């Protein structure tokens, strides 16, 4: 549609520039660290896209939770809600999912799997609701409350896996695994990629359409982009829109946790999340909060993580460099934005009339 294409094109080019800048910066650091750049790059390629296995069971598998949680961040940020707590919401979702799945071990998959995902969605929304109510009732900044709730969720998971949800032998700090029937099916035989990836793509397309085409999605965007104008000129109930968007963001993050449990880990343990909620912020920012671009950005980060593992294995370059790239991408996006804002403020406004 023509309405957004001009802005979308220029934002896409800026995001690509930011990503390339970040990769170039990492190349410099790799060289400075005394590693063979060619060797490292080859290993990265092999690990992320060099084979069907690395693509489907590496890159796309890793991209799945990043896309879903990236959508959670995009929805929140579009509404002007700085939800830093996707990691906690994801853990809440994962815990509810595993509890539901273990309780329904005997049920057929077409019953247990939807209920598991639903439990994850509701738990994520409920976890976000704590911060959303604090914001609406008492004006508590969500940046602080959601960040703190991440730690609460982290330690609550600890209590669960050493307590009520610990596996039957009480030896390992983890839950029992889900029954095979309660797991998400894989898409391609012999690969690890599961239907959660298809769900992620469908969600991205659906949210993109919702934000672009529906009145409710437009309300989310105006509430985030200009709350005062939305309330005065548009008579939008901004508080309500923001509150609901906050819950929707939590629901998506919770679903991310549910998909990861039912599709990849099949159980809950400490360090279940390697910081999906934080990486998802980089994904959403790189995608400029555009749900379709979240797919691309999620796959880019999935490839970086899969490739980073390969780089460490084959070229001896620490995979920590991947996290450097993630951080640099965020800085790159912010720097490009700032540069464009400065350039825009220097440009003369169009069509000013001469004073007669």
């Amino acid at each position: 549609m023509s309405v957004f294409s001009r802005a979308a094109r220029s934002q896409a080019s800026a995001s690509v520039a930011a990503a390339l800048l970040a990769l170039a910066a990492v190349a410099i650091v790799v060289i400075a660290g005394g590693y063979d750049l060619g060797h490292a790059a080859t290993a990265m390629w092999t690990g992320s896209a060099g084979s069907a296995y690395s693509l489907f069971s590496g890159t796309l598998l890793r991209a799945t939770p990043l896309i879903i949680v990236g959508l959670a961040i995009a929805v929140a940020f579009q509404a002007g809600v700085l939800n830093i707590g996707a990691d906690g919401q994801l853990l809440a979702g994962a815990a509810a999912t595993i509890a539901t799945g273990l309780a329904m071990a005997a049920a057929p998959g077409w019953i247990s799997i939807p209920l598991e995902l639903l439990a994850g969605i509701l738990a994520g929304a409920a976890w976000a609701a704590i911060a959303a109510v604090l914001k609406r009732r008492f004006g508590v900044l969500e940046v602080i409350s959601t960040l703190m709730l991440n730690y609460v969720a982290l330690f609550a998971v600890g209590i669960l896996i050493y307590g009520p949800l610990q596996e039957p032998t009480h030896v390992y700090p983890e839950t029992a695994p889900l029954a095979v029937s309660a797991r998400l099916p894989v898409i391609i035989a012999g690969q690890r990629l599961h239907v959660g990836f298809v769900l992620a793509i469908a969600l991205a397309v659906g949210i993109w359409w919702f934000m672009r085409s529906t009145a409710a999605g437009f309300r989310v965007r105006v509430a985030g982009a200009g709350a005062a104008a939305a309330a005065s000129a548009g008579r939008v109930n901004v508080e309500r829109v923001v509150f609901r968007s906050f819950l929707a963001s939590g629901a998506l993050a919770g679903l991310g946790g549910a998909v990861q449990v039912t599709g990849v880990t099949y159980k809950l343990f400490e360090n279940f999340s390697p910081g999906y909620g934080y990486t998802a912020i980089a994904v959403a920012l790189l995608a400029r909060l555009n749900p379709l671009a979240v797919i691309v950005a999620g796959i880019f980060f999935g490839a970086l993580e899969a490739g980073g593992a390969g780089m460490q294995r084959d070229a001896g370059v620490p995979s920590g460099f991947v996290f450097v790239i993630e951080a640099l991408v965020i800085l790159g996006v912010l720097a490009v934005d700032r540069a464009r804002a400065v350039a825009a403020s220097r440009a003369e406004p169009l069509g000013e009339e001469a004073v007669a």
Partner: protein
Amino acid sequence: MTDPAFALSLRDVAKRFGKSVALDGARFDVRAGTLHALLGENGAGKTTLMRIAFGMLRADGGTVASNGTARQWRSSADAIAAGIGMVHQHFLLVPAMTVAENVALGAGGPIGRFDPAVAAARVTTIGVETGLVLEPQARAADLPVGAQQRLEIVKALARNAKILILDEPTAVLTPAESRELYAWLRGFVARGNTVVLITHKVREALAIADDVTVLRRGKTVLSRATAGLDEAAVIAAMVGTLSDDVTHLAIGTHATGAAVLSLDRVSVIDDRGVSRLRDVSLDIHAGEIVGIAGIEGSGQRELVRVLAGRLAPSVGTARIPSHVGFVPEDRLRDALIPAMSLVENLALKEAGSARGVMNWSGIELRARDVVRDYDVRTGSVDLSAASLSGGNQQKFVLGRELDASPDALVVENPVRGLDIRAAAHVAGALRAARAAGVAVAVYSSDLDEVLSLADRMLVCFDGRVAVTRVEADAVSRALVGLT
């Protein structure tokens, strides 16, 4: 040459911010040892002029002199060194620090050295000498507003200010605190110091000041001693009826239709419990333009919002049709979303009521119509609202609000910051709306503007509304509560 009898003397001062002219050859002379009130409506350039005097802003043209010496301030540090202090409307205190620390902050002394005992003693000494008593160890954040203001003054005095500039000091004070402040300022002047008081409260200024200067649209329009000066003359200078550019005084002969906007015994009480509108009853009819006037804080802001259906009365009933166009004063905050395209900004009007799927192609066509019909200069309706000039933003907002024939239109300061052609275009659009049978209410802080448009005048004073003829004299008297 400059006259040493003037504590401050600013001549021919010009200042632009981008395309808007803040000061246009303003002149301001303050006799040493006097209390001088600087008056003007919002946006007249008072604060800008005093920030130039205090070295916070650099003038584009003109001269600044203090105590007979021409000055080129590099920053406000130079002005402070020359004995000038300024108390800003929004206090510049560090809330978490104590009174003594706030006073010591930036008050000189070797870098890195801070002696709490010395700082506290300084506060106590100033308290004894001037009567501005403060507890040195109290946290700034814990002080009541009046005491915070005292602290701001003490900060200036600690740097040996002999010329004190206060920007709207009584805006945040209770009447009792205001009286106390004024009494102290008189005493400060009696000890040989000089005070500049920026205010828009005419009655208070005339009661306390030795001299007044009135700014309007960046120009000095009145400067003289207060003795023998009457309130109506000052108001007239502020709102512009002394100027001779009033060419058109429409008389309320326009045929009008049914009442569209009706207020019945409406009162508005704000969050702090202050009555903003008191027992207002009025009707605005189809096919008339009603002008609204009021010195700032008289209730006109609330009246405008009640009429636009954006503010519910605390008491009484307001009968407002659902389709009311509203052009608020702060268009970039309340009317437009700068980062969004014109198409999206057009859709913004229906954002709250729209259901289902947005008809973007239809909205885009309407946006093109508005851009064409209201002469909005833009390369494309896909461009952001921020890319338009102020005048084109205003034309777009007006066009949007008049799109799909509203029953009523309420506009606030419609031509502020606009150049002559854009202003004429806006005025033409308002008259066209009247001709089309829309009930139009226009508030402007510039009386000439409303007088040239209105069929009838509503004048706010102290939360009450009087109806007057469209004549400068009648309105000026009503502005200060005379009937």
